[in-house]
């Protein structure tokens, strides 16, 4: 559906996007991840035909963004960054305006607007001026605008920014639902968002793609050490030595120790689950095991490793 090949974009001196290539298949929900200024928005602006690339090719729905601009724009729904809206229109006027520009036929317009009002939960604000609405409602109007013509491809630049936790969950579910039949690209710097909605993540940093794959692949490829944290109640002699003696344990760090209460953090080689062994050891030594918790590398760790240099 989307095919980007060696795409580069310069703004005067700065390189915003540097020679990136990726593909998005129909029905995928892809998360663009990256710190602010990584080039996510620029890539989206090129895909939506807002501006041309400096070099390289971007194909959307089989057409080049330069040659098939008008056709591509018909098939894309776009929520730009910061969600710009006309503050002097009310919701109904605005959605009608967008529906007209999107070329929805007269007899379909009402049905589509009604559908969007229902899907995006806009019923209570339809006659309110957009300028007077809360950020959450504005965001929903922006989403309604992007989906009103039932596009094949949705490009959403930070779709959940400014929403409260309940709304975020609603919007994510909405995106997931849409993503069943449509191709969705969304950008964000909120990692749980990608975990909650996307089946694939592309991590961008300083204009280049640093990782691209399904969430499981990314986590598998980039996790280093696993950590186990445990809390033990026992007399304080020799616990850490005995823990260190377990196979595959790299380091043992005693976090705190209050009387008979000790907390440890163990760093363990990757792919090893030592919880059982630790439990057995505690039983054998008659330690009282109060807490045992294994931390697997999260997407957050992957993200930090890749972009925090």
């Amino acid at each position: 559906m989307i095919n980007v090949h060696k795409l580069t974009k310069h703004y005067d001196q700065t390189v915003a996007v540097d020679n990136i290539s990726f593909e998005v298949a129909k029905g995928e929900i892809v998360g663009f991840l990256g710190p602010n200024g990584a080039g996510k928005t620029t890539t989206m602006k090129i895909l939506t035909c807002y501006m041309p690339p400096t070099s390289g090719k971007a194909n959307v729905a089989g057409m080049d963004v330069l040659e098939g601009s008008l056709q591509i724009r018909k098939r894309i729904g776009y929520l730009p960054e910061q969600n710009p809206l006309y503050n002097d229109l009310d919701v109904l006027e605005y959605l009608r305006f967008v529906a007209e520009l999107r070329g929805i036929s007269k007899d379909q317009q009402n049905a589509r607007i009604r559908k969007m009002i229902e899907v995006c939960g806009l019923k209570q604000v339809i006659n309110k001026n957009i300028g007077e609405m809360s950020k959450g409602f504005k965001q929903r109007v922006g989403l309604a605008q992007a989906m009103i013509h039932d596009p094949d491809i949705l490009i959403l630049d930070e779709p959940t920014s400014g929403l409260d936790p309940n709304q975020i969950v609603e919007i994510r579910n909405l995106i997931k639902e849409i993503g069943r039949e449509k191709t969705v690209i969304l950008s964000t710097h909120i990692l749980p968002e990608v975990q909650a909605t996307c089946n694939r993540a592309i991590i961008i940093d300083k204009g280049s793609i640093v990782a691209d794959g399904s969430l499981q692949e990314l986590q598998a490829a980039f996790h280093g050490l696993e950590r186990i944290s445990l809390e033990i109640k026992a007399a304080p002699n020799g616990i850490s030595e005995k823990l260190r003696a377990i196979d595959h344990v790299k380091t043992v760090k005693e976090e705190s120790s209050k009387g008979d209460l000790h907390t440890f953090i163990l760093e363990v080689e990757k792919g090893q689950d030592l919880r059982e062994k630790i439990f057995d050891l505690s039983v054998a030594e008659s330690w009282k095991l109060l807490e045992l918790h294994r931390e697997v590398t999260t997407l957050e760790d992957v993200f930090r490793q890749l972009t925090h240099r």
Partner: protein
Amino acid sequence: MNNVLSIYRKELRSYFNSPVAYIVITVFLLIAGWFFATNFFLIGQATVRTALSVIPLIFIFFVPAITMRSIAEEKKSGTIELLVTMPTRDMDIILGKFFAGLTLLIVAILFTQAYVITASIFGNLDGGPTFGAYLGLILLGATYLAIGIFASATTENQIIAFIIGFGIIFVFFMLDKVLLFIPSPLVSVFEYLSTDYHFNSLARGVIDTRDLIYYVSLTAFMLILAGRSLGSRKW
């Protein structure tokens, strides 16, 4: 064409939802009315000539005030990104905005018909020149609107848009006022390029196709420039 109409309707709605349209029309009528009323009551002349000949002067700052917002504001708020990523052509956007501005201007001009009616009750109104002046006002207004929209498309700051628009319009207005300082071979060129020269010619009651062609072509040229300027993000 449908897109032009959608944008036209939305722009009109924006004008009339906000105080812009009302302030514009009120202030315009106050100024024009003052010139009519001084003639009418103080000098005792039942004529609209002074009032109509003053309107081009009012237009110089008045029209760029109407258009300064049109594209600069869209650029500032980012809505331009929405607009140009929809299946619209840049020219559709420009034309929709142009016709909305023209409608507002024509509404304002039509209100001055009250003076014409008053004058025709108390005196002998010269039909030809009055009609010519009205036609001239609409054409002149359209040209200034096109210039104003072009100015607005060059910047995202409304005040700069106003000043650029005012500057260009002022130059076109002044061209036939500086003929004394112009070498004689250029005089006719300057005259032909001046917006006010053609207005005066129409206001005499002579509908000359040269004047019509001048206004229509300058308007079209400025609108195309505005479209180009809007498309400059692609350069």
